[in-house]
């Protein structure tokens, strides 16, 4: 049963990811991406990472996609809508993707399920994922967590510096 769901989710993710890049209408692309994000959330649920699934829907499907839609509507894309393809240079992209796929295929054999660290899968199962994530983020991983918040601050400051301030 698990395999069936995994197969379904993966298939939909692949098809809709392709549609995102192949569609020539940017709005359609964003909507395909919405479907894709929901199915990625499904994969997280399969892995019993319910918190990530919720965040995936709230942050990506909710906030980021709305921003995408705003950006597309603010930029007047009428000319691009009639173009044959939204982006050219797809042979190069295809080569990169094929390279990455080949790399992954070659590497799969070397992937290990052993882990080195204090959070074993059994322990996470025992205290549930969300609690484990919270404990990890606010104890051992507090440093990267705080650095991430400074990165966000810099991003905000940078966006304002580049876009908002009037030139004197």
């Amino acid at each position, binding site marked *: 049963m698990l395999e069936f769901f995994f197969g379904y989710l993966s298939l939909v993710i692949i098809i809709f990811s392709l549609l995102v890049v192949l569609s020539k209408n940017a709005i359609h692309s964003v909507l395909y991406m919405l479907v894709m994000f929901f199915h990625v959330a499904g994969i997280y649920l399969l892995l019993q990472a319910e918190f990530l699934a919720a965040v995936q829907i709230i942050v990506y499907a909710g906030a980021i996609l709305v921003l995408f839609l705003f950006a597309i509507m603010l930029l007047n894309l009428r000319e691009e809508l009639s173009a044959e393809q939204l982006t050219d240079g797809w042979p190069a992209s295809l080569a990169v993707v094929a390279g990455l796929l080949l790399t992954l295929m070659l590497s799969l054999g070397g992937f290990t399920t052993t882990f080195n660290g204090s959070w074993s899968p059994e322990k996470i199962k025992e205290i549930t994922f969300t609690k484990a994530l919270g404990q990890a983020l606010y104890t051992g991983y507090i440093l990267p967590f705080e650095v991430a918040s400074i990165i966000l601050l810099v991003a905000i400051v940078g966006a304002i510096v*580049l876009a908002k301030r009037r030139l004197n």
Partner: protein
Amino acid sequence: MNFTDIHTLMPEIVMAVLALAVLLSELVIRRKETVGLLAIVSVAVTAYFIPTSFGTVFNGMFISDGYSVFFKFIFFTCLILTVLISSRYLEIERSSHGEYYALLMFATLGMMLMASAGDLIVLYLGLELMALSLYVLTGFIRHEYRSNEASLKYFLLGAFSSAILLYGIMMIYAQTGTTDINTISSVLTEKKATVSLLLSVIFLLVAFSFKIALAPFHMWTPDVYEGAPTSITAFMSVGPKAAGFAVLGRVFLVGLYPLQINWIPLLIGLSILTMAVGNILAIQQRSVKRMLAYSSIAHAGYAVIGIIAGGNEGVSAMMNYLLIYMFMNIGAFSILILMRSEDFLGESLDDFKGLAKTHPLTAGLMLLFMFSLTGIPPTAGFIGKFYLFKAAVGAGYTWLAIVTVIFSAISAYFYLRVVIYMYMHEPEGEAVSLSGSPSLGLALLISALLVLFIGIYPSPFISFARIVTG
């Protein structure tokens, strides 16, 4: 980590808090030079906490050791020199905003985290913090087209290289089950070098090559360095590059050390290609700023030799080289800033014609920095190269040292061409008017003195680098 270990993180915490304070101070301070002065004071305060910071916290996620402290010393000096050369220049470019200094400090914080990172996650976040600040700083002259273009190019290629880095980290994690650099090393010693491991090494190497601009991953460098504000070009070609070397050293000489036999040929290839591309393409440049961008690519090719040679000798030679490169490179960029005035770009080779007649002191300083970049004694550039060659020969790469000498000889052509233009050509048209300021003068003085001092009496710096890596 216990609260008693807080001293290890103190420099980073202080830097973050003071960067926020500088960011806020811009609201109330009208004169932007004062904000710059605050940034310099902040660096001094941060540096005060460095001597007591030695230690390892968060299960090896953050390491403050001699290696990281040496790099932090480079970052601090680089930040101070950059602030000194910036204040007048930003006014000329009509872009004097206080956020500039705060972003410089955030970039420095990112670099400090990179140098101290004992975990690939901290490394990545430090790198992003640095890179994000730099994207903004590159586009800081908003009304200038080439600054915008440089910023966008840098952002796109930077994001691309970050994706490659994450892919590499993912592959390493999938095969070792950890992101901790020391644990990766101990897991790898028990493993055979499989295809998948080599592929992940290549991903990491490509990502770092993007960051330190090794050929063939250097293509963003000339455009970005030319388009960015000159003060930021000076900063980018020194601090972030040194930070890139810090993580390259930590990841490859500690984490991936068991695979050394496999990655050394790759690194040698990159190094030679980088020296070739940087030095040969620099010959064609008519813009001194663009020439210095290519020269910066070439110098990264030299410094990589320290990592190839490895060991105490190689790493300390690499660190010294980066330190010396900072003074001579920021010195050369300071001269470019000195030449820039309201209606005069002062970047072309022709602008340097006859400078020795009109401004002998400026020409003399430029001469010193060009000699040092070429590696002519008794300047610091010679000492830097000498110890790199010594390390290469000591590790059995005599042929690589010879190749480097040949490329250094080629580099003399375009560095000394600037000198010839200054001393052997007659001034053309109106005399160049310099836009000096006390702070710029101070930066030039510090750079010139250290280029000479390290050139004549290098032993304190050499032994300092040896002690911290030993």
